[in-house]
């Protein structure tokens, strides 16, 4: 068959109509502004930005609900917004890795424990082993990625459900962290002497221009990179395909094992990044750090509209979901809502967000 061939790399440049699937700001804006052709399209369009919409709603509600001092809206103070993005950055970075795993149709319960392990590793290597920052961080990141890769291999080749594999991984990572640290938090002191970490590491606790916390900057950079990866790479296509229909993906020549290993490795790697940040922010690596973070990350992903069944979802949604949770936490705290009631409200928000996605399918 000669007529179905991949075209030459440089097709004639003509005006490309803003058809669906088109990239580029102009196309996006044009499509957005055009009158919807059908009810389904309208619904799709509204829900496409559902998580962002929810984020905006929560943002506005937070402004309205914010306590004021001397006429100033406390929620909107630079310090407070900085606090929000910093508080959200670790969960957010983990949630980015979690998005890949969930798109694949899996789940990763080990990320919180990998965070703890990485925090311990960072502290031990910097303080006790006298590593420089770069080698210490490199070793920790490699450990995190390897840990994830091993889990991915078990999922792909042994055919064990990821829930089980990573539940076991959670225990193992916590165990290693406890053994490595002797069960104690390892404090990080800064200085040039022995048993002291290079002072540059403390930058993780700082901020750009005194406003934007460094962890938040890292979160934004990783988030942007993840959006690009998910939209433009063959790897991401393969993730979506496996999550949508693994058998079909395999028969279509998708390297299923390789992709699965890579996805879990990415999740482990990002958890390790979060662990390094954690150690830098708290000046300590404790084996119990990150307990329960995996659930917050899953919540962020789900609020962001990614289906736990795999195969559909977006990275932008996850970032919005993480920010939404952060704002929610902050405004509840600023209003001194009882800690127990806070749990209740957060649970309701997660259910609401998921119900909204069901609703979409009902209307469309």
């Amino acid at each position, binding site marked *: *068959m000669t007529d*179905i061939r991949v075209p030459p790399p440089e*097709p004639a440049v003509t005006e490309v109509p803003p058809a669906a*699937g088109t990239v580029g700001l102009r196309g996006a804006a044009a499509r957005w502004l055009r009158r919807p052709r059908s009810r389904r399209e309208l619904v799709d369009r509204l829900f496409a930005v559902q998580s962002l919409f929810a984020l905006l709603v929560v943002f506005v509600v937070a402004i309205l609900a914010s306590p004021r001092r001397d006429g100033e809206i406390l929620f909107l103070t630079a310090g407070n917004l900085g606090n929000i993005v910093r508080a959200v950055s670790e969960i957010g970075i983990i949630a980015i890795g979690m998005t890949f795993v969930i798109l694949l149709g899996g789940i990763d319960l080990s990320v919180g424990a990998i965070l703890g392990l990485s925090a311990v590793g960072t502290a031990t290597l910097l303080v006790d082993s006298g590593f420089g920052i770069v080698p210490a961080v490199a070793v920790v990141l490699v450990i995190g990625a390897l840990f994830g890769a091993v889990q991915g291999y078990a999922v792909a080749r042994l055919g064990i459900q990821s829930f089980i594999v990573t539940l076991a991984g959670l225990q193992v990572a916590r165990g290693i962290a406890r053994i490595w640290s002797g069960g104690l938090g390892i404090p990080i002191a800064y200085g040039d002497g022995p048993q002291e970490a290079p002072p540059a590491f403390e930058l993780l606790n700082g901020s750009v221009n005194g406003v934007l916390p460094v962890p938040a900057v890292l979160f934004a950079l990783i988030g942007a990179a993840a959006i690009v990866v998910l939209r433009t790479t063959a790897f991401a296509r*393969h993730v979506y395909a496996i999550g*949508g229909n693994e058998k*079909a993906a*395999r*028969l279509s020549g998708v390297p299923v094992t390789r992709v699965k290993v890579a996805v879990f490795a990415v999740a482990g790697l990002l958890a390790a990044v979060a662990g390094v940040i954690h150690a830098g922010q708290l000046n300590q690596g404790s084996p119990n750090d990150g307990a329960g973070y995996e659930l917050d990350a899953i919540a962020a992903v789900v609020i962001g509209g990614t289906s736990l069944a795999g195969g559909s979802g977006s990275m932008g949604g996850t970032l919005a979901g993480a920010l939404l949770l952060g704002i929610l936490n902050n405004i509840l705290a600023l209003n001194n809502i009882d800690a127990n009631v806070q749990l209740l409200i957060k649970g309701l928000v997660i259910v609401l967000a998921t119900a909204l996605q069901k609703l979409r399918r009902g209307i469309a």
Partner: protein
Amino acid sequence: MILVDPGDAPRAAAGTGGPVVVAMTGVAKRFGGVTALDGVTFEVRAGEVHALLGENGAGKSTLINILSGVITDYDGAVTVDGSPVRFAGPAAAQAAGIATIHQELDLVPALSVADNLVLGREPRTRLRTVDRRAAVRTAREHLDLLGADIDPRRPVGSLRVGEQQLVEIAKALALDARVLVMDEPTAALADGEVRRLFATIDGLRRRGVGVVYISHRMEEIEVVADRATVLRNGSVAGVVPAGRMDRRRIIAMMVGERATSLFAPAPTDADGSRGTVREPLLDVTDLVVRPRAPRPGRCEPDGISLTVRAGEIVGLAGLMGAGRTELLETLFGAGPRGRRTGTIRLDGSPYAPRHPRAALRAGVGFVPEDRRRAALVLDHPVGRSIMLTALATVTTAGFVSRKRERSAVQRTITELAIKTSSAATPVGALSGGNQQKVVFARHLLAEPRLLLLDEPTRGVDIGAKAEIYRLLRRLADDGMGILLASSELPELLGVCDRVLVLRGGRTVADLATDGCTGEDILAAAMGGATAGRDER
């Protein structure tokens, strides 16, 4: 495999006897801007089998969904026993005596037959526990009415599809169904099961149940239906009474003014190339596969020898369970792990794919039988689905070039005449035929030398079928080798140059389609004189 002998099947004495049970008048339905039904009138009498025909997209599903209460907002009137009704949902339709048996059966595999039959209205003992004995008794009564010899205590998951279907019918009867809607009931059945089903349908007819029968298989309609309503583009194209079931006429009604020539001309007619000796592309000798963990219900290759030459379309015939799918999977590297003996050569070099990627690299493509389960993600866009296999050709350093992808996708959509509003439309929104073309497109973009096809026209309407046949012929003319497994004799005879017949995992015959008849193929497939029961 359709092995229906019209003389053998039970035939209703009087076709359209009883009173009208359900009547739909002037029914119309629009989805957004698309008219799905436009003033359709349809009725079902007691004790008749009323076939509903039409290409995919003609409006059959919409009509059935209205009848069974799935779609509740529509124009027009529905009456049951003369009184107007408007079902609030499937449960209401069921309560009015209209039961629907979908292609995907609504049974719980882990529960027993009896439990499934009484699901939701389980008989209770005095202690409010489920009275299993009573449930089994009820189940047995209903199964006996159908003449089905199935142990009610067996889990449904352990039954064959045909048996599950009988359970589903029994369930409908247990609910006192007066009208039974059957959507492609034979799609997954072996020949023996088809016969059994037809006998059951005849029994239903005798008991005064009205049956709405939907199928793509013309041969079945001729045998089982008392009359047929043909839909085209949301309207009734005609009603064919019993005894006037002429295949050609019905096809003409379904297709309208479109070309009715289904099969592409064989190359003999075109350039006379048939018979010229080309180099064997695929050469299999004494292939035997012994899986490490044999799975029940599978028939792995057990002595396969075959040759496919470049430019040749070779058919694979055989009864259900003869090992056609298993052979194709082995050739594509998708079979079970295990020991393999015999030789496979592709273009003269040894070929032993361990996984589908290896097969694809070697230039072998595979269009699987069940596209929903094994080929597509229904809510993924058409473009992405087409590009899955050949993604590497538009990828640089891991990044997909949208521009190159778009033009490859557009070109393919045009080339295969895939009817879709855009490349971003979800595959699931396409008709069955166009979905199948998407799967074809995916593999053609990877430029295979050898294409393996497993029932490529299942659930595909006639128009798209014809297009697929023409496409296959063109691909072969361009030098591709094609191995086509099919259960439809006309398809094998009409499309293929040669037909290989499998039985019990062995090749038992290699027939040239010139001067060969369906009877020859069947005889080989059944192993001579034995009756047409499925063998395994």
